[in-house]
């Protein structure tokens, strides 16, 4: 990994923080179709499973 990758890591974390206002907006717009919600939840679960345990 080089400095560019490290910068990407920081950018990723920043992106997560920047998502917070978007979530607040999402709370006010909860009319998303059930199918869309199911897809988003599936993506979150997949992202969670992709992180390995480190023994």
């Amino acid at each position, binding site marked *: *990994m080089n400095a560019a990758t490290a910068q990407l890591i920081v950018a990723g974390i920043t992106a997560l923080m920047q998502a917070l206002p978007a979530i607040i907006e999402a709370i006010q717009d909860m009319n998303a179709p059930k199918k869309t919600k199911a897809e988003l939840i599936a993506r979150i679960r997949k992202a969670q499973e992709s*992180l390995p345990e*480190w023994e």
Partner: protein
Amino acid sequence: MKRLRCIVSIIMLTFLVGCAGMRTENVAVSSYEIAGTVLKSAQQHAAQACTAKILDEQKCNQLKRTYRDARAAYLMAGDTLVIITDATDIVATQHQLSEYQEQVARFTQLSSDLIFWLTQWGVLKDKGGAK
């Protein structure tokens, strides 16, 4: 260094342009996925450095502890994000949102620590050779 900044700028711009056409929930989930990918990448490099004995046991244990805590915060944030995404009750969701913010703040702190140590200990290097 200019080249690195240029590459990062292009990637961030691509991400932001992509986000512009998405629903807000989608932006949150995409950001969550990106954060997970970068943490996974950091863990892989840390694990390789430990396996290759580039880092001593004490440093490896420190990295492991930090990664485990960051992973735990990430998983909790994901569970909370699922509740928020699936919610229909605004009051309950706002409570979950504040929990999510706490978990993200913890995740950010731990991930930043992990990256700082990896850079400090020479696992993350600039291609030009500067640490």
